[in-house]
């Protein structure tokens, strides 16, 4: 049976969803729209039922693109997702507004169960409902009470699902009920007035409010959390904690995953019989999978915190205090968390934009997030800074190298904000942005929900974005492994002979050969072909090759240069590589890595979308190739122009 789960936001709808389906949840698509369809399976007396979790809405009439799926499905009986039964979750402590959606669904005459959730909270607020009396007002519907956050009421709900008649009923709560057209404002307004009138008449009879101690704690907390000074201080502190965890503590599990996959791939290349297929596995597929899994710690950590903020009700307050600041930039208060976590990594950042309900604001946040300097840029920045920026102090106490690093981060941040403001003017949408945001009462987070959110995010990333990342890493591997004809073999042979003449050691010979092979692979040829294009930026073909390979991930730039210059990588310091790069001369005898070309490269890496994983995740989140390609286009243009201007000024 197909069951729709509907309800206002902040009613604990997802708790009910998790309570019924547990970990048997999947993510799919509603036909023709870009909203994720979250559904889960549960078994009831040997029958599997599909529960579809619709976006939380206040009415069947949508206020955003994402919400429209509710209207589209419920209006059209032929829709493949049209439900045979609806479960409407309502917050018992705020029944008036919640009954609005319920009565709309009831009037569609679909069999419907009303779940009065958060019964504990209602009791605490001194509200009680006479359920049999309420049920009398809605013949054919079943009404039950739950406290889903602690799993109370599951049996009652299952029993209701089992026992309710699966035939459409013929009752109407609001006699004039009909589904208005979306542009029929007058019809919707009349419906709102009349429906609320009827709802209030019912509530007078079935609801009793004993005390007036409502919302006291929330109100007191809000005095501090939205305070002009403390509000921002607390938010800053919360961000610092999140940032610290993602930035610093995720490094350990990431290094671990990195190490395991590197060892595994090295072991495979030793154990497997030599050949192309073994190379594909040990150098293409295994590192590719490692390149997907390495992001899991950051994603899991960020979503752990975001789920906490959302569950507790604090995220809505963040929007409240940040709205006025972010509005001129076309961003939302909720953009702050995705943008700042992009300083660690844009991938969880982009995924975190899911909390932004306005389509345009979400799009802008996604498009500018990768401009924030992420941690993968650090190896590139530090290498280039050590190479071309002298160790000096400015103004007597500021370290020049540190100052440049700070400047690069600032450049990324300023670019992100400026581009956001520009995109606000460029992206056209029919919807007018508005806030109308409920500030839910503060609640302690439900750990089960937090866990399920983390699990779902990780799974979606690994399966959906992982496919693209793996495919691109295999393509890059193939391009670095193959060359036209026997060009690579010849080059390798030459290099080997040359090495013999120079009496190089085995290790040195290997590096020499690897460098020659890379130079003559398809990537090498592309790098050389790229030279005329990147010459105005101050780069040669060797840098060109590294630009192409580092599309896999920015930090690959360092390793690629090491291969090309045939120097041994020494992990952190890169002393050998830096010495080798310093001695690299152009045809005219000037160094390749001057202040101008080095700075130009830094600026290039600030702006360029050099990350296939981000590309894949933007495709996953926007559900089309259009946006990631636009993003790569404008970021690439900015990178090229920025690097060109930098080179021009400094040389």
């Amino acid at each position, binding site marked *: 049976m197909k069951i729709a789960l509907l309800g206002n936001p902040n009613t604990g709808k997802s708790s009910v969803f998790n309570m019924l389906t547990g970990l048997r949840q999947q993510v799919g698509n509603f036909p023709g729209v870009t909203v994720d369809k979250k559904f889960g399976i549960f078994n009831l007396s040997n029958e599997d039922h599909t529960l579809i979790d619709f976006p939380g809405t206040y*009415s069947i*009439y949508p206020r955003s693109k994402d919400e429209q799926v509710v209207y589209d499905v419920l209006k059209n009986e032929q829709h493949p997702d049209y439900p045979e039964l609806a479960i409407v979750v309502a917050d018992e402590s705020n029944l008036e507004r919640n009954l609005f959606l319920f009565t709309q669904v009831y009037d569609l005459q679909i069999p419907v169960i009303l779940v009065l959730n958060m019964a504990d909270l209602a009791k605490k607020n001194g509200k009680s409902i006479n359920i049999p009396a309420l049920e009398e007002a809605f013949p054919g519907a079943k009404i039950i009470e739950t406290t889903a956050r602690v799993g109370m009421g599951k049996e009652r709900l299952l029993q209701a699902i089992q026992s309710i008649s699966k035939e459409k009923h013929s009752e109407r709560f609001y006699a004039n009920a009909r589904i208005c057209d979306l542009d029929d404002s007058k019809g919707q307004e009349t419906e709102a007035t009349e429906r609320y009138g009827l709802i209030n008449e019912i509530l007078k009879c079935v609801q009793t409010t004993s005390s007036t101690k409502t919302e006291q704690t929330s109100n007191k907390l*809000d005095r501090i959390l939205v305070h002009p000074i403390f509000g*921002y201080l607390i938010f800053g502190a919360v961000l610092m904690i999140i940032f610290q965890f993602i930035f610093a503590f995720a490094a350990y599990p990431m290094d671990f995953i990195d190490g395991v996959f590197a060892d595994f791939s090295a072991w495979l290349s030793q154990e497997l019989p030599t050949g192309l297929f073994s190379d594909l596995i040990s150098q293409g597929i295994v590192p590719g999978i490692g390149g997907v899994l390495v992001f899991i710690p950051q994603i899991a950590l960020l979503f752990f915190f975001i789920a906490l903020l959302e569950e507790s009700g604090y995220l809505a307050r963040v929007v*409240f205090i940040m709205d006025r600041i972010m509005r001129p930039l076309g961003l939302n208060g909720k953009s702050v968390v995705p943008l700042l976590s992009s300083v660690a990594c844009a991938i969880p950042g982009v995924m975190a934009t899911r909390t932004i309900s306005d389509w345009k604001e979400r799009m802008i946040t996604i498009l500018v997030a990768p401009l924030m300097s992420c941690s993968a840029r650090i190896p590139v920045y530090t290498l280039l800074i050590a190479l071309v920026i002298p160790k000096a102090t400015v103004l007597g106490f500021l370290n020049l190298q540190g100052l440049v690093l700070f400047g690069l981060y600032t450049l990324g941040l300023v670019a992100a904000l400026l581009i956001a403001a520009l995109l606000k003017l460029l992206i056209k949408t029919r919807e007018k942005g508005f806030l109308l945001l*409920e500030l839910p009462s503060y609640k302690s987070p439900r750990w089960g929900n937090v866990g399920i959110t983390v699990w779902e995010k990780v799974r979606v990333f690994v399966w959906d974005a992982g496919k693209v990342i793996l495919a691109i890493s295999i393509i890059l591997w193939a391009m670095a492994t193959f060359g036209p004809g026997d060009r690579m073999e010849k080059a390798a042979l030459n290099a080997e002979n040359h090495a013999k003449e120079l009496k190089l050691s085995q290790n040195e010979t290997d590096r020499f050969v690897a460098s020659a092979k890379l130079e003559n692979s398809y990537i090498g040829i592309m790098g050389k072909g790229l030279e005329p294009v990147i010459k105005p930026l101050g780069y040669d073909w060797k840098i060109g090759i590294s630009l192409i390979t580092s599309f896999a991930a920015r930090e690959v730039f360092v390793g690629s240069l090491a291969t090309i210059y045939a120097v041994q990588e020494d992990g952190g310091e890169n002393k050998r590589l830096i010495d080798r790069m310093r001695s690299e001369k152009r045809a005219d005898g000037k160094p390749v890595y001057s202040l101008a070309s080095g700075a130009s490269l830094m600026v290039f890496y600030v702006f360029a979308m050099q990350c296939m994983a981000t590309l894949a995740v933007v495709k996953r989140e926007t559900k089309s190739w259009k946006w990631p390609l636009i993003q790569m286009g404008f970021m690439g243009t900015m990178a090229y122009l920025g690097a060109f201007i930098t080179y021009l000024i400094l040389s």
Partner: protein
Amino acid sequence: MSKALSSIKPGQLVTVCCIQDSELKPKLMEMGLIAGKEVRVLFRAPFGDPIAIDVHGYVLSLRLDEAGLIQVNETIGSEVFA
């Protein structure tokens, strides 16, 4: 004399009179802001915008230009919370 909700001071209790015709009007009404409804302005965000109001047991935040669409009457004798 009705006033715009955006001009009401925190703590004050007011009654919704009417909403200006706009795209947002049906949305505001669906959130429970219908004529005759009593709401209390709770607090404002640090820059005075948006504002938070209590609509019969739940807290709704609105930008000033959204609140400006809503005309309200001051409820006589409503006490002002500090």
